[in-house]
């Protein structure tokens, strides 16, 4: 058996290129897969840790007037029997500039349902509660503190700017989120010098029926849960990684097929020499396993590298998009390694199963093989068409099912639909190309070389089909995803432009609000002031005509000032009786607007009346308009600011400052600082906001681009592998043509034209498919994930780029075999014929 195995492997000694191609395919596929998985695993771990830290799981109480709560408030509420727990939050700067969040907790009253209970390591409570206290910190925060894992436990890092100069002794708590220090509230109060002040009170979800007097209750359910939100982002990445894996396996399939085909004779000989069919399959499987392990391990290692390269961008994107803290360093659980290996080996087995099947059915005499392939390929094409139709039907069924789902549901089904779309198109590609070639061949009967080229391409189709499918998928995904991200960016930035009409946004301290407002109103530099207010409310009733529906939906209530600067640009999606009418009613306090999310979720339309309760009052108002509210996951009701103040006693919020033409922003800033001691934090330049938003999208783009470029590169590799695999055979077919008097130059040109043309067709098919994919992403997946849809943007530039990429990729892949043909000495062509 060992001899037989060595004999089998000796093939690769003669053909190291094939071995390289096989390993390359496995390597690239598993690298992309495991890289993305590494990012996902690491990010998920971060969320799990963040969620364990009561950021999302608990209801919170804050003072209505925006003043900080104190220990007395806490004691008063406890003595009234309310199950509240104090939380002190602050930030300190690490030696390397990282902002560390300090969280002080009161472990006795912190609700047990919050996972914090599991966040610490077992340690003596006394040590946690009494000086010098303890700092619980995740190991991945240690670098920011300039500590190694080994020296950290018990260390007391010295930080500049601390009252005491040192942190309490460190205790490692791996389940804490990164850049977070958790300690007893007494320690945190000392560290932050916060005296009696606390940041907020928390309670177990739904523990309180209503907010105590003077406080605002924010339900955990209404807080953004990064887990939910980012799930779609990760699903996106996973889908991309799977795609890359599939494309990579195309390469493997092609290389394996060739390696088998060229060894058919050898296999027959081995069979004739007495190796059993089963033994032969076993040997081939062993060979697969060996290759798989080598490829997968190399892939996983490179995947981790890839993840490390992409991770900072991913972390930054998630951080700014969803407010989810993600560790910048990788944190890989053990199952990640095993999973990566399993997926690669599984994929390899799938790709190699055909080869093993053929080896198992290998006839010793090798008769009747040649005649069968043509009808075999025809059968395969029919099968592909049928399978494509079946997948398309499945996709249709999913789509119909999705149409019945409420928004925000069916994310997985949405991805299923997109996958079905891609798969069906890929399956239909070879039959379509075959049909196209047959038709063109008939048209070009009079052009012998063209006819030959088409017929020849048809002959190559079985070999190239897989690579073409891979190319189609990669191209469509590339186009679809960049259309979506591009569209998202366009829409969002547009929306920002419309919303951020003021030049500055000022968040004055509550007690200074009125003074500052008055001061600003008299200032010559200022053209208009746009104050806002914000409150939490409950949507209690919806009236349409005479029907009244009762409900209890927590909503945000937001007040804006319909000033002259804001009015023309604030977008409205639907109105009761035109824009002017809507704004008039809004400004007069006779109507409210609702955001798109709320309208979709509750089936609201302009003209409906909504009953709204909020601390301080209740109101029934007609809906005058629905407005787009990208990026928000919550339902929101919009009122004119004075109305919000009058009806619900909402605390004052930020003030938008529109400068007069030629107004000097710097002077205003100086004035505010001199009169009210208002520094940089409270006054935000609108341009700064836009710059940050643009930055976020640029990073998202970077990741998406990197991943889709890599996928495309893999597809190109698949094509190259297929072409190289058949290069020798191709030369044998081209040699007689050359002998018949077709110059080599033309043969090379014809070859390139063949592939370029085929790729062009694939690229052309990828255009509608990619657009459809983008539509699926914005209209199905986005609705399922976020509850609102994005307008579909079509980017002709992207499309042209896709076409060019398709042809470019094909020509690049064809270049190597063509050069080989070009370089081959004429005699070699015929010499090959002699062997």
């Amino acid at each position, binding site marked *: 058996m060992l001899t037989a195995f060595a004999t089998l492997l000796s093939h690769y000694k003669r053909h190291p290129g094939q071995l390289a191609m096989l390993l390359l395919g496995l390597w690239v596929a598993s690298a992309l897969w495991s890289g993305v998985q590494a990012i996902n695993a690491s990010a998920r771990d971060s969320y799990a840790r963040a969620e364990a830290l009561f950021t999302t799981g608990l209801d919170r109480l804050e003072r209505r007037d925006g003043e900080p709560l104190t*220990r007395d408030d*806490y*004691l008063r509420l*406890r*003595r*009234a*029997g309310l199950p509240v727990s*104090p939380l002190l939050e602050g930030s300190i700067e690490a030696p390397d500039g990282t902002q560390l969040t300090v969280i*002080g907790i*009161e*472990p*006795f*009253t912190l609700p*047990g349902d919050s996972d*914090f*209970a*599991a*966040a*610490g*390591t*077992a*340690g*003596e*409570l*006394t040590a*946690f*509660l*009494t*000086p010098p206290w303890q700092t619980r910190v995740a190991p991945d925060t240690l670098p920011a503190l300039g500590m190694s894992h080994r020296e950290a436990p018990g260390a007391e890092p010295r930080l500049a700017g601390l009252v005491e100069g040192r942190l309490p002794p460190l205790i490692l708590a791996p389940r804490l989120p990164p850049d977070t220090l958790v300690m*007893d*509230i*007494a320690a945190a*109060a*000392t560290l932050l010098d916060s*005296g*009696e002040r606390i940041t907020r009170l928390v309670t177990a979800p739904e523990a309180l029926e209503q907010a105590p007097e003077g406080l605002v209750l924010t339900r955990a359910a209404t807080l953004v849960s990064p887990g939910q939100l980012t799930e779609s982002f990760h699903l996106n990445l996973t889908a991309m990684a799977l795609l890359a894996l599939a494309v990579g396996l195309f390469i493997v399939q092609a290389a394996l097929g060739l390696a088998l085909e060229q060894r058919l004779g050898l296999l027959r000989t081995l069979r004739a020499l007495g190796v059993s069919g089963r033994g032969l399959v076993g040997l081939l499987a062993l060979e697969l396993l060996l290759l798989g392990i080598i490829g997968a391990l190399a892939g996983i290692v490179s995947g981790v590298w890839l993840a490390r390269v992409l991770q900072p961008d991913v972390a930054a994107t998630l951080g700014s998009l969803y407010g989810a803290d993600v560790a910048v360093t990788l944190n890989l659980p053990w199952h990640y390694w095993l999973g990566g290996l399993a997926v690669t080996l599984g994929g390899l087995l799938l790709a190699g199963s055909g080869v093993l099947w053929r080896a198992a059915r290998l006839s010793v005499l090798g008769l009747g093989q040649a005649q069968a392939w043509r009808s075999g390929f025809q059968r395969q094409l029919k099968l592909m068409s049928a399978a494509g139709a079946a997948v398309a039907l499945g996709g249709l069924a999913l789509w119909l099912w999705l149409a019945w789902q409420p928004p925000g549901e069916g994310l997985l089904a949405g991805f299923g639909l997109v996958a079905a779309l891609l798969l069906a198109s890929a399956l239909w590609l070879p039959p379509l190309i075959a049909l196209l070639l047959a038709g063109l061949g008939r048209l070009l009967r009079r052009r012998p070389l063209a006819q030959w080229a088409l017929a020849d391409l048809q002959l190559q189709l079985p070999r190239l089909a897989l690579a073409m499918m891979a190319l189609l998928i990669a191209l469509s995904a590339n186009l679809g995803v960049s259309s979506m991200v591009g569209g998202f960016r366009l829409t969002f930035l547009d929306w920002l432009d419309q919303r951020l009409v003021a030049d500055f946004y000022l968040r004055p301290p509550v007690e200074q609000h009125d003074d500052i407002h008055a001061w600003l109103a008299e200032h010559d530099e200022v053209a208009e002031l746009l104050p806002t207010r914000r409150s939490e409310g409950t949507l209690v009733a919806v009236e349409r005509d005479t029907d009244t529906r009762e409900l209890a939906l927590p909503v945000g209530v937001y007040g804006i000032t319909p000033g002259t600067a804001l009015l023309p640009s604030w977008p409205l999606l639907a109105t009761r009786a035109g824009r002017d009418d809507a704004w008039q009613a809004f400004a007069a306090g006779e109507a409210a607007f609702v955001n798109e999310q709320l309208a979709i979720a509750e089936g609201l339309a302009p003209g409906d009346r909504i009953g709204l309760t909020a601390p301080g009052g209740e109101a029934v108002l007609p809906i005058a308009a629905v407005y787009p509210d990208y990026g928000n996951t919550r339902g929101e009701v919009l009122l004119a600011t004075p109305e919000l103040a009058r009806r619900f006693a909402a605390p004052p919020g930020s003030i938008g400052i529109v400068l007069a033409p030629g107004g000097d922003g710097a002077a205003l800033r100086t004035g505010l600082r001199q009169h009210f001691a208002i520094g940089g934090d409270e006054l935000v330049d609108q341009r700064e906001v836009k710059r940050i938003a643009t930055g976020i999208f640029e990073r998202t783009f970077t990741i998406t681009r990197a991943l889709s470029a890599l996928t495309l590169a893999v597809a190109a590799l698949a094509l190259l592998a297929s072409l190289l695999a058949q290069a020798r055979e191709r030369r044998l077919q081209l040699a007689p043509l050359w002998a018949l008097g077709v110059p080599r130059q033309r043969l090379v040109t014809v070859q390139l034209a063949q592939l370029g043309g085929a790729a062009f067709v694939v690229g052309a098919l990828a255009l509608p498919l990619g657009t459809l994919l983008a539509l699926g992403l914005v209209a199905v997946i986005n609705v399922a994930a976020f509850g609102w849809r994005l307008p579909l943007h079509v980017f002709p530039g992207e499309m042209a780029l896709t076409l060019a990429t398709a042809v470019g990729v094909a020509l690049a892949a064809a270049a190597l075999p063509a050069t080989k043909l070009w370089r081959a000495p004429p005699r070699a062509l015929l010499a090959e014929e002699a062997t």
Partner: protein
Amino acid sequence: MMRIAILAALLAALWLAGCAEEAPPGETAGFAGLGQEAGDFAQAHEGIRLSFPEDHAAHPDYRIEWWYLTANLEDERGEPLGLQWTLFRQALTPPDGRPEPAPWAADQLWMAHMAVSRGDTHRVAERFARSHSGQDDGQAGAVAEPFRAWIDHWQLATRVDTSDAPGDSFTELQLTAHQDDAHGGFGYDLALVAEGPLVLHGVGGFSQKSADGQGSMYYSQPFWRVEGEVTLDGETRAVSGRGWLDREWSSQLLGPEQQGWDWFSLHLESGHKLMAFQLRGGGADGGDYRSGTWIDPEGEPTALAPDEIGMTPLATQRVAGREVPTRWRLEIPRAGLDMIVEAPHAERWMDTSVAYWEGEMIARDAESGDNLGIGYLEMTGY
């Protein structure tokens, strides 16, 4: 894990049963760490003179302390009810290691248990808090004059207005505690009037707890007349009956070998009161250590020596997955008593962070079966 850490520390504050097998051997000197060396803490010993009202307040220099109230009640239709309210204190640091008083700084931990029971129904709640011994405005605490012991909105406080004439505010108390739960909530609001004097156990209030001399300061008020309202599963009823308050503090309560106890407090029809306990293990020759006080109707105590108390479990019942003795023979020859003391309802498991059994008992004459009295039994370590 944090929870477990909290529990591990609180174990040491409890005169209760625990999960000794979960804690490392080094920490389980005696039951639940109650046998730890007193170290830098103040030490209970014979000869300390109790002084009131000061000793009603917390003794932060000692490691552990409690205010432990039980009551046997009846509603207007004569149906029996039981209740328990307990406030436990544990010092986090010895007196010389206390942090400076600061807004959240703590050197004392507090835990409270409440229970209401009627028939097979038994509702239990638990609370935790921290305080600094230098401040008496915290989330929990106990002050002497005017008397108040509290955690959050649960409190036992004087009803005597001492603002004009300072005096003993401990004779009339109000007990208030409520807890929401899935059954509609439970709690009580009760007036307590002392119908007798305070009773000092052991030798002038020093109660020995093992043969080698470990012990605690221990006094009781067993003569409470209780009137008020009890709410159970959302239903409030007027009640009246008798209450018993135990006050105890120490820094090293147990001998290192003691692993649990059975503790009786009985109101006898004759007007006598009986306190008797046995600590399993830690007696002479490794036997059980018994002690008790026989109190006459005027409140005059007679300390009972270990060999003057007979305490024999007769039958067990399965409660919360454990075999718990719910029928006892209690013999006090000196008082001419031979009693069968039995729990009418076995489901009195305190499913708190440290679990134990605490429930109403009925005492009958062992021979005649005549009703002799009612009371409470606490059993730990099962």
